[in-house]
């Protein structure tokens, strides 16, 4: 299942502020443009991103400009989906290897790596731009050392085929609607579909209920009602996207960025932020502790934390910025294209770490009917 690109799991940007002033743009310029440039390092840095759309976008829009500015060559690595890359990194680290120096890592995998001490501790003094980020995007070890920095965030939303659904749905409750029997495509795993969180927010007022097993069980019971509606439980993005575009499976949860891209290419699809909010997930930059390119890794992560680069990502890749919005020069229209002012549903990553085996088992039983 790793035959295609995919992204799984991560951290959240709460409390977006709808402030857009000329001053913000100026501030972004000051932070991004006038800062002293890092000394030109001549090394090479291996950077891993999800193979497919993400890697292609970074190869085209990000790495060439980075190399031009810093002199650091980037060797772009395609990561497989899910935790597979984490397993490979862990195995490589045990033998002193580093398949990639910097990797974009989903949140559950990031925490797992952090628990095992897989990530190099980053030097805060070498990451002056990290202060541009929302605090929850600067990940720390219990001792306060930085273990990773938010790279990009993206939304999982309710996506529909515009020909089969002339009117966009307004709520995640549409997934439970009996009229949609056999029409849904949902992600196959608890830890990347975030359907427990969606259920908790939609029917039980919030994700706090997922704090204990009884609450999770309650959400699972509610989810049982929508299982007959599901035609496809997908692991592979390509499989669902094709079905969504053709109308074979005209409704489901999917990525806001890729759906927007498909719609802009004339495909009959749309992404809707339900009234309960989209799921805000993210990937973070982490450096493997066997990396020999620590200096270059710091330069790269700092570069990626600049508001102008985050704005460029939003425009070119369609991801939502991890830096504070007022620091970027994104117009309200540009921001609306990559996010929403509806408060997002924040995944409970802790759940998939602490109750890993229990949840995956319950989940498998649920979807198998």
């Amino acid at each position, binding site marked *: 299942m790793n035959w295609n690109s995919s992204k799984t799991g991560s951290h959240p940007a709460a409390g977006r502020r709808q402030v857009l002033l000329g001053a913000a743009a100026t501030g972004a310029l000051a932070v991004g443009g006038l800062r002293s440039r890092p000394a030109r390092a001549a090394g090479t840095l291996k950077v891993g991103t999800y193979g497919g759309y993400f890697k292609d976008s970074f190869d085209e829009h990000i790495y060439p400009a980075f190399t031009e500015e810093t002199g650091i060559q980037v060797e772009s690595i395609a990561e497989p989906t899910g935790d597979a890359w984490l397993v490979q990194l862990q195995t490589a680290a045990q033998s002193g290897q580093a398949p990639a120096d910097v990797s974009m890592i989903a949140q559950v995998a990031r925490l797992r790596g952090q628990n*095992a001490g897989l990530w190099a501790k980053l030097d805060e003094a070498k990451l002056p731009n990290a202060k541009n980020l929302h605090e929850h995007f600067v990940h720390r070890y219990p001792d306060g050392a930085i273990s990773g920095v938010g790279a990009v965030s993206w939304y999982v939303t309710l996506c529909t085929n515009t020909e089969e659904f002339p009117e966009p749905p307004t709520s995640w409750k549409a997934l439970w609607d009996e009229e949609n029997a056999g029409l849904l495509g949902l992600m196959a795993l608890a830890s990347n579909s975030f359907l427990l969180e969606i259920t908790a927010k939609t029917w039980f007022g919030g994700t706090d209920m997922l704090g204990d097993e009884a609450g999770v069980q309650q959400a699972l019971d509610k989810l049982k009602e929508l299982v007959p509606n599901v035609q496809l439980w997908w692991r592979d993005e390509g499989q669902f996207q094709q079905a969504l575009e053709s109308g074979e499976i005209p409704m489901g949860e999917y990525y806001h960025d890729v759906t927007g891209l498909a719609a802009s290419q004339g495909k009959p699809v749309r992404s809707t932020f339900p009234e309960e909010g989209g799921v805000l997930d993210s990937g973070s930059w982490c450096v493997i502790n066997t990396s020999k390119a620590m200096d270059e890794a710091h330069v790269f992560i700092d570069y990626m934390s600049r508001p102008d680069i985050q704005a460029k990502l939003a425009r070119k890749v369609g991801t939502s910025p991890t830096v504070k919005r007022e620091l970027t020069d994104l117009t309200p229209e540009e921001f609306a294209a990559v996010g929403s002012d509806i408060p997002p549903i924040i995944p409970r990553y802790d759940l998939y770490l602490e109750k890993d085996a229990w949840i995956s088992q319950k989940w498998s039983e649920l979807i198998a009917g």
Partner: protein
Amino acid sequence: MTDRRPRGLPARLPVLWPAAMLLLFFVVPFGIMLAVSFFHQVEGGFYEPGFELANYARFLDPFFGRALLFSLWISVLAAVIVIAVAFPFTYCLTRLRRSAQVPFLVFVLAVLSLSEVIIGFAWSTLLSRTAGLSNLVAWASLIPRAQAWTPSFGALLMGLCYLGFPYTVLILYPPLSRLDPEIPEASRTLGASPLRTFFLVIVPVLRGPLLGALIMVFVFNLGAYLLPQVLGRPQHWTLSVHITDQAVFQSNLPFAAAMAIFLMLFSLAFIGLTMVLGGRQEAAR
């Protein structure tokens, strides 16, 4: 006369090379997997060396038992169907002139060059509601309107059979083409009908290759993890899919390894049983 054949180490050298390769690329990885299956999985982290039976104990859960039974069932079913189709096909093929056989063999080999991914996605399109064969059936007014035939048990079975067919033909082709034409001729001379000849003479003569092909397709199906995801519903996900989920998505290598060992033991037992039954029939003859 002195025996000039080399003795001792020199005599065994040619065998040492494959033996070393087998050790390096099969026995060692298998040993590692076996060891990992007893390791301790740290919740929220990775595994650490240890010895515990917890990973095997999870099998006591009926869920994985059902997945195992389903895997065995669909693998056997697909293998039997493939043999039932491929054996007569190959027999007829070998009775053709050489020049007429070539295009068929080229076609079968061409199918082999397709990856499981392409086969899976091609079938999912062919069986879809929007672009699939059901549109033709609906056009012919046999069903009221086009329907989605995938994901379903039938779609998965179809995919597995398609995947196994060319391998089966290639395994059966050499023995069938070497089959002495005098054997069926003798049967015909003695008055047996073509069908009777086929079932009572040709099939028993080629029981060995047939059994071999059956076992190969069965094992092949058991390892399929991609087709069940693309063409099946969650209740059709084989144990191989669950192994992949645990290894790739849950970082739980010990449990994945334990399931893999379990699956292997079951398939070995199954193969052993098939061979014993086959041998017993041979002896009874």
